[in-house]
């Protein structure tokens, strides 16, 4: 549904984005934004407001508070949200299948099309690549996140 809507929209908007990687970037941004916002709002709500208020009373300006208090406290949450969105976007298919062009292929729809045209070998190989990439990202991020989470 979302894919069709985006397809119609970007075909009619007189900016020549259709068929490029940009339209995919915009599509992913649009489709996955609710997931990111929901994840992060939970993280933001968990931070006790008095932690920032205390820094404020200590004389820290808004920018300094962001840098020294808010962002360091948000970091584990930001990492987790990034990971979640990464996984969701790699396996995303409903929208990207409509917006993919010959010069801007993404892996999930490519797997589907190879399944119907090229045969199982190529499909299996691509699926393996997709799985390995996700696994690598998960391991890397859990390492990084673990370092911060331990301190908190």
């Amino acid at each position, binding site marked *: 549904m979302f894919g069709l809507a985006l397809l119609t929209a970007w075909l009619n908007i007189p900016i020549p984005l259709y068929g490029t990687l940009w339209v995919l970037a915009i599509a992913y941004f649009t489709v996955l934004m609710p997931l990111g916002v929901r994840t992060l709002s939970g993280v933001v709500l968990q931070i*006790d407001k*008095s*932690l920032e*208020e*205390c*820094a*404020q*009373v*200590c*004389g*820290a*300006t808004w920018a*300094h508070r962001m840098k*020294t*208090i808010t962002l*360091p*406290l948000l970091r584990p949450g930001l990492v987790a949200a990034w990971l979640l969105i990464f996984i969701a976007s790699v396996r995303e298919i409903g929208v990207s299948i409509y917006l993919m062009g010959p010069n801007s292929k993404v892996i999930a729809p490519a797997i589907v099309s190879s399944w119907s045209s090229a045969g199982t070998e190529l499909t299996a190989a691509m699926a393996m690549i997709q799985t390995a990439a996700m696994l690598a990202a998960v391991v890397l991020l859990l390492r990084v996140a673990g370092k911060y989470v331990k*301190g*908190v």
Partner: protein
Amino acid sequence: MSTPAPAPPMIAVSDLVISYGGYVAVKGISFEVRRGEHITLLGPSGCGKTTTLRSIAGLERPTGGSIILDGTPVFSAEHRINVPAERRGVSMVFQSYAIWPHMTVFENVAYRLRVRGIPQKEIETKTHQALQLVQLHDAADRPASKLSGGQQQRVALGRAIAFSPAVVLFDEPLSNLDAKLRASMRLELKELQQRLGVSSVYVTHDQEEALAISHRVIVMNDGRIEQIGTPDEIYNQPVSGFVADFVGSANLLSGTIVGSGAQNGFVMFQLATGPRLTARYAGAASGTATTIAVRTALIDIRRGLGHRDDRNALEGRVRRRLFHGDFIEYLIDCQGNRVIVRRPPTEIVTEGEAVTVLFSAEHTILLDR
């Protein structure tokens, strides 16, 4: 407890009104904090005491009135002044301690000094001094999130005093500690206050804490000030039933003044249920006062009926006995009045026993409201 010499007040709050939408949390209160004075805002939850404190810190925007810090207006509804919290230069200890979990104890305490751009050497000296004052010197390099509640409280305190502030605001700093720790922190706080010579505003709902550590107490109820006075005045000369009951529990008995009014500061008071008592006339009370207060701890119990001396006497029967450890609380039905009495655990009267309760006229206080 000496009164500081007259000087311009450190904090002057006048006609402060704070409302959220249609709800008015603080309904026009005024008070002053003198230099070196420790004032406590005391009241039940929701009486506006924390809101008042937060508006002094600049974390809450009042709707009316003015706040002057050390001669400088930091808020004035009339002149449209509202200095942001980061430029007010006050110090605050939060109820939740607000310890930054991603920093060490040292970094927590040094934060304010760093924000002010003080040279590294001075930061180290001052932070170590503050840590020594709160007895956390050995824990300086530990992560702040690994500390116990009492230690976190000390970090918060150290952070508040590290840069030698003139004003420290306390928002129920001891309410999350257990009773034993609270008692010892109370003592430490008082000693620290004296050593540093700061002015402070302290918010609490614990009347014992308020009486123990402050020069003056402001009793608040429903967004208004009920009474301002020294702990002694608040305890011994409450102006209203609310103050008498909230600050140290009291029995409130209703009736009317009989006879020709005050004689040597005492009046005859007839309870609505019949018996006549002698009550102290505190001066502020009007001739139409209809309530007297008797502290639960200042009432004597005798077994059996018919005991008389120069004190007020009521006869009754023990309805309930509640063992509290340090004292025993008795609920006594006295000729239609419910009287609560607290006695040391050495005197034991059983439930159902007939007793005479005795209390001196000196401790029977006539109330205005």
